[in-house]
């Protein structure tokens, strides 16, 4: 039952499903036991995080293939499996998920006082969904987890959000749901296609990558587009990104952290784990589309960010640009590109998660997200300012922080594919510096908040520690990226070997 699981216990199952159990636990607590609910949620998320460390330490980063596998057939005769496993592409994102979930849960401790039970239950269900996405190796299971994230996220936005929260929640849900339903049709196609093989139908990754290269080009084309929309919406890739600013602006802080930190990565992960392996030839041939869109996304996102007046929207649009690098890196199909893309996902998870937390810190004190109504925060909250500025610098790709490594790798990869692709992309570093510094100056340095609210210092465990921790992780990745890159190396190499591309120049098949 537990394939080559070194630990002998179904650790991935435990880690993945523990939050779901926690959600049930929370749901069973009495409504007015506020602190009990909070502590239970924190305990669950914390234990999950500890178990995640077990996963990390028992993961052999030099090993190829999937590790810590849990596997059994759950639909007899249909060939569907419950199949969990991590490889180098997944393990970092898997870790990131539990980290940011813990941050979100802890952050919410005193800031959420309304309908607590539902809140924490939603957060925990969301965590299970996200964790599952990164370890599910059967397409059916993947789809289940992929969709499972929708409802709690929509609830988080709709119930605990601000502004046009219902509109945003609805938009978030429908947009991503529509994308993933097309993917569903593609999954069913895979199933039908795969059911003709000798061993019976299958949807598991390991079997599918044996089959996919033999599929006709026409079928691969359909696979490509079928999966593309789901993940492009999730990323979100231009022009499917418009749900993102709305969702971010109206989401509660914890929701934004999760949304930016983890949810968007599901798209990039999906590209790597499913779209490309299932349409190897078509991915290479159609790569020009995501490449072009990602270049547009980077510049388009950056320029729009330049004129944002809402702090959350600013960071949200900057995410569009940042995630553009992920897509760009992936579809270069070079070692540097793909590794850079994964690194960018992890890095963006840390940085944007922390930035949104920072926005929360400000919002809790000033009750506004409008940059024009902020200012001079540096005079009142020095440490916070320092942290936020560091994170902003990380976001604009300052060397020594994680985003730089990712961006330089991706740009290098793009350059190798087509030099003129890299030139506009790299111009991003100018624009990103402009908007981040402009924001920092307006929010922290100049002026005073319009209505001088009291600015209590940061709450240590809820605000300061997560910010410091995330910033430190980003710095660690920035100054010593090798271990992270080595962890993903075997998986990325395997993926690239699988594709019909030249190892150095990737998609250089482009005209």
């Amino acid at each position, binding site marked *: 039952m537990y394939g080559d699981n070194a630990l002998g216990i179904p650790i991935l199952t435990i880690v993945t499903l523990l939050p779901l159990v926690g959600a049930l636990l929370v749901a069973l607590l009495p409504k007015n036991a506020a602190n009990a609910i909070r502590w239970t949620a924190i305990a669950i998320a914390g234990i999950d995080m500890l178990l995640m460390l077990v996963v990390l330490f028992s993961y052999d980063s030099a090993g190829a293939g999937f590790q810590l596998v849990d596997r059994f057939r759950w639909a007899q*005769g249909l060939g569907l499996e419950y199949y969990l496993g991590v490889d180098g592409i997944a393990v970092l994102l898997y870790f990131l998920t539990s980290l940011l979930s813990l941050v979100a849960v802890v952050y919410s401790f005193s800031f959420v006082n309304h309908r607590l039970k539902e809140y924490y239950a939603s957060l925990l269900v969301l965590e299970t969904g996200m964790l599952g996405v990164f370890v599910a190796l059967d397409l059916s299971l993947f789809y289940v987890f992929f969709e499972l994230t929708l409802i709690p996220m929509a609830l988080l936005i709709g119930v605990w959000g601000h502004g046009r929260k*219902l509109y945003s929640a*609805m938009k978030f849900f429908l947009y991503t*749901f529509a994308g993933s339903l097309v993917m*569903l049709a593609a999954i069913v196609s895979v199933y039908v296609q795969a059911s003709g093989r000798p061993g019976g139908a299958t949807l598991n990754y390991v079997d599918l990558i044996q089959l996919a290269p033999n599929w006709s080009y026409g079928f691969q084309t*359909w696979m490509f587009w079928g999966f593309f929309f789901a993940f492009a919406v999730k990323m979100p890739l231009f022009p499917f990104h418009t749900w993102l600013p709305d969702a971010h602006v109206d989401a509660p802080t914890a929701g934004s952290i999760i949304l930016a930190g983890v949810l968007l990565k599901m798209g990039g992960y999906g590209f790597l784990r499913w779209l490309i392996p299932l349409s190897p030839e078509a991915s290479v041939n159609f790569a020009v589309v995501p490449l072009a869109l990602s270049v547009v996304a980077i510049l388009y996102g950056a320029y729009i960010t330049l004129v944002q007046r809402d702090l959350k929207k600013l960071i949200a649009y900057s995410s569009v640009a940042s995630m553009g690098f992920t897509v760009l890196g992936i579809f270069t199909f070079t070692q540097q590109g793909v590794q850079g893309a994964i690194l960018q996902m992890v890095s963006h998870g840390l940085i944007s998660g922390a930035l949104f937390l920072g926005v929360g810190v400000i919002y809790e004190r000033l009750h506004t997200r409008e940059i024009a109504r902020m200012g001079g925060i540096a005079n009142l909250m020095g440490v916070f300012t320092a942290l936020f500025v560091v994170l902003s610098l990380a976001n604009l790709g300052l060397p020594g922080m994680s985003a730089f490594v990712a961006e330089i790798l991706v740009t290098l990869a793009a350059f190798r594919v087509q030099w003129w692709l890299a030139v506009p992309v790299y111009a991003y570093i100018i624009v990103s510096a402009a908007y981040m510094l402009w924001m920092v100056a307006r929010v922290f340095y100049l002026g005073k908040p319009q209505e001088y609210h009291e600015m209590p210092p940061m709450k240590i465990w809820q605000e300061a520690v997560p910010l410091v921790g995330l910033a430190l992780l980003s710095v660690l990745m920035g100054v010593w990226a090798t271990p992270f890159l080595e962890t993903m190396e075997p998986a990325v190499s395997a993926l690239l070997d699988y594709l019909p591309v030249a190892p150095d120049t990737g998609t250089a098949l482009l005209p």
Partner: protein
Amino acid sequence: MPPVVYPSVNLFAISSIIALVVTVLVVLMLAVAAPRVRGAIYAAITLAGIGTALALAVAQSGSAPVSTFSGSWRSDTLSLFLTFVILTSGILAVLISDSWLRLHNVGQAEFYTVLLCSLVGMITVVSATDLMTLFVGIELMSVPTYLLTGFAKHEQRSNEGAMKYFLLGAFSSAILLYGFTWAFGLSGSTNLARIGEFTANGGGEARAAFLLAILLIIAGLSFKVAAVPFHMWTPDAYQGAPTVVTAYMSVSVKAAGFGALVRLMTEAFPGMYREWGIVLVVLSVLTMLLGNVVAIVQDDVKRMLAYSSVGHTGFMLVGLAVWTPENRLAVASVLFYAFAYVFANLGAFGVLAWMENHGGGTTLDHMNGLFGRAPAAAGALSIFLLGLMGFPLTVGLPAKIFLVQATIEADYLWLGIVLVLLSALAAVFYLRVMFRMFMYEPRYALASPSQPLMVIGLVASVVGTVGLGVFFSPVWEYAQRAAGA
């Protein structure tokens, strides 16, 4: 004068309907003998009856297909599968109806009589292999549903819904009958298999006439399953009917109607599947589109669900439309969908009925903040709506997947994608209800009469919706066997 030769009769094959008819008699006699009986005694008797019928159907499921009564009845996996579906919806209907009947002082004996008779009709519809039996069965299915629609006889909307349903139902029955007439006249037999022999080669010189028969039949049955443009009665009748009745008939009539369609198309006209297939493709697209689009603009949840049920008819039609003699999945996917639909849709209407019993209503405003007032009800309704939406871990997802799979098998991928996109559209109105329940402030308090049977019914529906969403494979395998039979 030659002696009368009696046909061989296998009573075991029709034992389910015998059990139901016996139950009808028991109920009627009890009503006559003890008119003052109160409480859940009728419900208990009815449940026992349907349960017996279900047990007898299960008992038959192991044996080989039985054809009896001069070939007018066949008990095979297809009919048994649909019998399960119908009887399941019957049981759930009884469970959720009890408290409404008692709260509104509706004649229980009459209600259960009519309900049981409609079950007899539906089982006949799905088991009949002869046009004559089928026609009588369809009428025995329809007439009780007209009656049930009007069962809240003190409510004008109920009367009016019944009136419309009745008039249009009779109208479409006539169209259907005309189709049967032609099918009989062209082949000289009312037996489906015999007709099938005539149409095996595409109808020969009578091709046009056979097509006429097929199209008339499709028109007539499209009315029963509420396919566009024969669906117009649906919103009015569904909204006018007592909610429990809507719950019941929205799932069972559809299942039986599709059973009849499947039988007729695949047994009587299999040789002309290209022709009727394309017609059904067009109908399915129209139906999916209209049902889901108009549902978006409804403010009454009951009416919204009525339109959504039109949409679901469209989805199911997709499954049948892509039928080919080789495509085993087509019929199986329709069957599975019908089963899946029972739990989700009946459950959804059931929660509406629950709310009405509590003094609430069925408009969108009534849904506001339901989660705060009645978390269990809101949670249940959410699960049902997610099921209808086709969300993972509910039965709606595999149901939709199998339909799509069938389209792919038949190289009709675009139809599958249309289906999938319209499912996404459908999410709009289901979500809106959920949003109301979770994100709005409640408007009023709910009374809380005890409704034990209702709760059992709803819990059973939840279990069905979620349980089948995870462990769908036995049902799916059974459906595939039924389709292969």
